[in-house]
């Protein structure tokens, strides 16, 4: 679907060689922090922006030339595109629906986004969440085969988010393909068949939510606090399999071999009769794994006073 996509803004490479394939009926989430290039990719696929290089094919069309039959078969929910504030919900959906070859009946669309009570209310009097649902309605009114959702539930309260999710799930039950962007991990996990993690215009990880979680839990974190800094710990830490990081007396070991490393640490402590305060073994959440990936791309340093040591294999990334 997308191959080697690159988008420059002046000297900034907003999208830096992204390749992506989405199958029919699949829900794929582009996950990443602000500025990762998610929206740029989606806008290129929608035909709103032109790519610098690379090839793109969606539904057999090149969105760059954006033929009108292509826009007839896609639905777009942008992050922040306005709706005529003077018109009522029904009038807006009627007007936009008229442009599509096979549009859904307005009442059906209003029902789908649960705005029946507000159907004859002007858009300007709606709450932010309700306006977002009109956004969604306008993305659906053309009965699209492929739907782009750019941060569909940003600004929703938790209950509205759940409802938004069930709506999106209903769409895919109809066999629709969805490409959504989000910076909420739980949203990607809840909705997507496949998650693509982006940072600085590159794909840093890709897989089903379960796969990402499994890969993430492969790296376990062992944490403890040393009683006394004077103790020569460096040689012991050097023998560990995982990667060591710490600040002052706090030590954190990220390891793919938690059993061996934990035995090593506790054996060393027992030998010296040291009690390791706050000893904990933690499986990182998907959230932490994701933040790790993103931070790696940013090349974040440890804060002042931090120190790192490399114990053997230091890879904590997802593949």
């Amino acid at each position, binding site marked *: 679907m997308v191959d080697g996509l690159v988008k420059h803004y002046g000297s900034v490479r907003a999208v830096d060689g992204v390749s992506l394939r989405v199958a029919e009926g699949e829900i794929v989430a582009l996950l990443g922090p602000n500025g990762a290039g998610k929206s740029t990719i989606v806008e290129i696929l929608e*035909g709103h922006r032109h790519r610098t290089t690379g090839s793109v094919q969606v539904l057999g069309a090149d969105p760059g030339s954006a033929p*009108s039959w292509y*826009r007839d078969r896609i639905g*777009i929910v942008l992050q922040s*595109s*306005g*709706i005529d*504030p*003077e018109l009522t919900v029904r009038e807006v959906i009627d007007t936009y629906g*008229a442009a599509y070859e096979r549009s859904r009946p307005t009442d059906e669309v209003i029902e789908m986004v649960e705005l029946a009570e507000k159907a004859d209310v002007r858009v300007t009097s709606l709450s932010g969440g309700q306006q977002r649902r009109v956004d969604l309605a306008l993305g659906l009114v053309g009965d699209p085969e492929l739907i782009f959702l750019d941060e569909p539930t940003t600004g929703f309260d938790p209950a509205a988010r759940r409802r938004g999710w069930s709506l999106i799930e209903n769409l895919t039950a109809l066999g629709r393909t969805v490409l959504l962007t989000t910076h909420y991990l739980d949203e990607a996990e809840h909705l997507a068949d496949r998650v693509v993690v982006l940072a600085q215009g590159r794909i840093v990880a890709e897989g089903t939510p379960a796969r990402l979680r499994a890969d993430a839990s492969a790296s376990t974190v062992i944490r403890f606090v040393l009683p006394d800094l004077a103790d020569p710990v460096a040689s012991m830490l050097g023998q560990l399999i995982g990667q060591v990081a710490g600040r002052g007396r706090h030590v954190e070991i990220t390891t793919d071999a938690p059993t061996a490393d934990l035995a090593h640490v506790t054996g060393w402590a027992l030998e010296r009769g040291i009690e390791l305060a706050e000893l904990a073994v933690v499986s990182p959440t998907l959230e932490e794994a994701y933040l790790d990936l993103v931070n790696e791309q940013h090349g974040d340093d440890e804060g002042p006073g931090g120190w790192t040591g490399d114990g053997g294999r230091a890879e904590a990334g997802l593949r």
Partner: protein
Amino acid sequence: MRTLRLLVVQIRSQNRIFWRVPIGAFFTLVFPVILLVLFVALFGNEDFNTSYGGSSTSQFYTPGLAVFSAASATYTNIGINLTSRRELGILKRIRGTPLPPWVYLAGVVGSAVWIALVSTVVMVSLGALAYGVNIEATKLPAMVVTFAVGSATFAVAGVAISAVARTMAAAQSLTNATLIPLGFVSNVFVSLGVGGDPPRWLEVIGDIFPLKHFAAAFGEAMSPFSDAPAFEWGHLAVMGGWLVAAGLVAVRMFRWEPNRS
């Protein structure tokens, strides 16, 4: 056929939007009528000398204010409306739908011309019925053609203004700061012949811009002294030139994406 249906949907939708903003509707439709009533009440409806010869107050003001209301229904409304739709991200949304962009723009222009027609008919009817302003069947075609050329010119100029204005506030200032002063040098609010000779440069400015030509051509088509069919080809040609120039600016500079990032 389908395109025509889409165009009708767009024009109706834009009309709805117009009527739901009372302040815009007031300035376009009611304000010029108030001016006509005021001017006739202030100056009396006697004949006075204009650069075109003797005329009653209402015979002078009716076509001028009709033209002014048509210009503000098209130029001012489109300039502000399109800019606000762009900055709200509505134009960008339109680009993501199969609606051909030109049909959307034609809807905006068509709706504005329709409102201009309503305001012109209201003004001319008021002048004829209340003040006995002259209307002749043989000069009606000239009135219609002049209205069509003039309102098309100001509509396209409105699109051009929205292409130039980066914000809604800029569009409001640009349209009002151009149209209202022009009204004073274009024989709309005052006759340049009254009160001695006006400075030459004021006349030149009036001659350059299309409002004076719109008012003059429409005034001739309503004048009791002109000969039927009263087509003013020179004035129409100047407006045509502006139509083409504004069209070029609009085509080259119009953007669908909001300027806010």
